């Protein structure tokens, strides 16, 4: 029974690093970047469950991110509900929509599934833009309130950093739980061979639907966190390019790896910040890095870096995780 112990150690390290970062880093700018990394990690975690484990690609996942953000914005601002109730509604709505959309869409596969989810994402984005009486349209939605528990306000900086990374931690633990359950094993069997797992009695369609709903719910949580952090949302934050960016995070980080999601989200959030100084050449360099990582580490960074480690040290018995 080494697995649970290892997981416990990993989780403790993760918590320790987050706490240390939270207390040692003073500068609001760095805390803000880490907050964005956290939000993106939640997105990548959800999508990673769908892509890495269930083997289903979604090119419209930003829709759920947006649904989360807009639901909480509208409920808490226009209707004056508590944001925490709005969070429940946002997750509920995302689950419901994922169920309705997933039912027919997940019957598709390959590029057709990609197209189906892409179309769904586009439609949701157009709704954000065109239903302007409710969403504020293209100009965006202003005046989203700050989060608050009792007398603690969560505002940009340390408090929000801890809030977001607490959510990341919960998401990581949830993903791990699902993966080590019966469901997780069934999931991996779908990834390796859908027909084989169907033959041994796994209800693949229902399983895919469940995972799709789970990742949608995580997307909605991320949207909720984004909306109350920036306190302003507009449709372009949830468009097609954002969906593509999410897929890129998962693939670059390494599919089917929880830590890969964190790595991918960090890289794709940090890279543009760092590339600022290249100004006009930013796009060229960003594109190049994306291509190079994929050419030389087609399994993603987690796998690739591990390979390098193993190659260069050639130590016997280096364990893979």
């Amino acid at each position, binding site marked *: 029974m080494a697995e649970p112990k290892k997981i416990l150690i990993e989780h403790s390290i993760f918590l320790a690093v987050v706490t240390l970062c939270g207390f040692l880093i003073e500068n*609001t700018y760095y805390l*803000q970047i880490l907050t964005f990394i956290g939000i993106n990690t939640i997105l990548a975690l959800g999508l990673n469950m769908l892509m890495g484990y269930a083997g289903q690609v979604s090119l419209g996942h930003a829709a759920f991110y947006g649904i989360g953000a807009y639901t909480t914005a509208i409920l808490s601002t226009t209707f004056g509900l508590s944001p925490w109730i709005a969070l429940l509604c946002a997750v509920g709505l995302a689950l419901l929509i994922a169920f309705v959309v997933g039912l027919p869409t997940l019957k598709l596969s390959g590029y057709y599934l990609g197209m189906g989810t892409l179309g769904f994402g586009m439609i949701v984005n157009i709704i954000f833009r065109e239903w302007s009486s409710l969403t504020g349209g*293209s*100009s965006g939605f202003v005046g989203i309130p700050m989060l608050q528990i009792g007398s603690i306000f969560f505002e940009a900086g340390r408090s929000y950093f801890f809030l977001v990374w607490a959510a990341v931690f919960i998401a990581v633990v949830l993903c791990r739980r699902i993966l080590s359950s019966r469901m997780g094993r069934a999931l991996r069997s779908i990834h390796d061979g859908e027909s084989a797992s169907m033959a041994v009695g796994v209800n693949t369609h229902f399983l895919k639907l469940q995972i799709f709903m789970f990742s949608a719910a995580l997307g909605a949580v991320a949207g909720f966190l984004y909306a109350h952090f920036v306190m*302003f949302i507009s449709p*372009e*934050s949830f468009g097609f390019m954002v969906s593509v960016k999410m897929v890129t995070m998962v693939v670059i980080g390494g599919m089917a790896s929880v830590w890969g999601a964190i790595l991918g989200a960090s890289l794709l959030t940090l890279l543009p910040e760092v590339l*600022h100084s290249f*100004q006009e050449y930013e796009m060229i360099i960003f594109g190049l890095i994306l291509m190079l990582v994929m050419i030389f580490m087609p399994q993603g960074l987690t796998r690739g870096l591990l390979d*390098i480690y193993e190659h260069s040290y050639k130590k016997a018995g280096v364990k893979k995780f």
Partner: protein
Amino acid sequence: MRQSKIRSTLVVAVCVMLMIAPIIGASSAMAASIYKIGGVFDSTGPASFLGDPEQKTMQMMVEQINATGGIDGNMLEAVIYDSEGDPAKAVSAVNKLLHKDNVIAIIGPSTTPTTLAIVNFVEKAQVPLISCAAGVEITSPIKPWVFKTAQSDLLAVAAIYKTMQSKNIKKIAILTVSNAFGESGKKQLVGQSKEFGIEVIMQESFGPNDTDMTAQLTKIKSASPDAIVCWGTNPGPAVVAKNVKQLKIEIPLYQSHGVASPKFIELAGDAAEGIILPTGKILVTKLLSDDDPQKKILAKYEADYKAKFNTNVSGFGGYSYDAMVMLANAIKGSGGDKNKIRDALESTQKYIGVSGEFNFSATDHNGLSPDAFVMVEIKDGTWKLLDK
């Protein structure tokens, strides 16, 4: 083995790049007695036609001010980031300016959504912000630390409607681009129509990258309005102008100040003939009468810009010109104190700039009067002033 070498070289290269980049960015940030001013512009991305000239103008202005000895003997330094039109990137850029570069004031961003996304952060950090975006929402309600220099769409619509009244136009159809610019225009066009006794009988829209608008125009044609107002930024409106000619629609076409640049005439070609639009005075500097107070400033800006960047000046760069001049005036004597700069900005009176005459007050953080716009018609491939 060779494989792993290539891989490790690559990884090392990436890491080195990641480490060097911030150093390059920060290396020039050390010396004392320097006023750092931040800039956030949409220099690339869909709004680059705004962000690019704004960024260039800000760089030019900082150089000019430094060449004449800076402000109170202190040199200025511009720290400029590109938000790419993405609100999340604008937030990161502004936080970097506020907390890492420690700027004393910020100019930009270029669009309404990117501005609204950062307003809360600027307010909290209490640093003056002069936005170059047009949306009315930015300065109403008034936020203590937020100003803007771009003419509101409100004024552009008022200018168009005034011209329409004089031409006895009663029914119009509007065709707006489906982004923040078009939506703000639509809101103003519909909102102010009653006031001017004009009826909006049809509202259509087009996507920023659409290649053909004949379907919308056919629909509009069948409703036979007295005029069509198209609200968008290049290239969409140029396609609309071409489509109007192709469909042989004889209804007069009005455009917004979003296309008020020589580029529009170049794009639309012959189809631009007869189009009427509002513009800041920069486009028609030569046509202004000599007693126009803005003429001298406009001519100087135009000449300086052309000399430095070897391209024609665009009216949009003027937003950051005005922001920079007013900010420089406000910094004078403040010793770099943000509160003093804010107060000085708010009490700016009778500053005559590229976009018009500014009179800021505690209740008006845009400060432009309706005569900031003039109406022009495109004739023989150039602009012609319309009489008021």
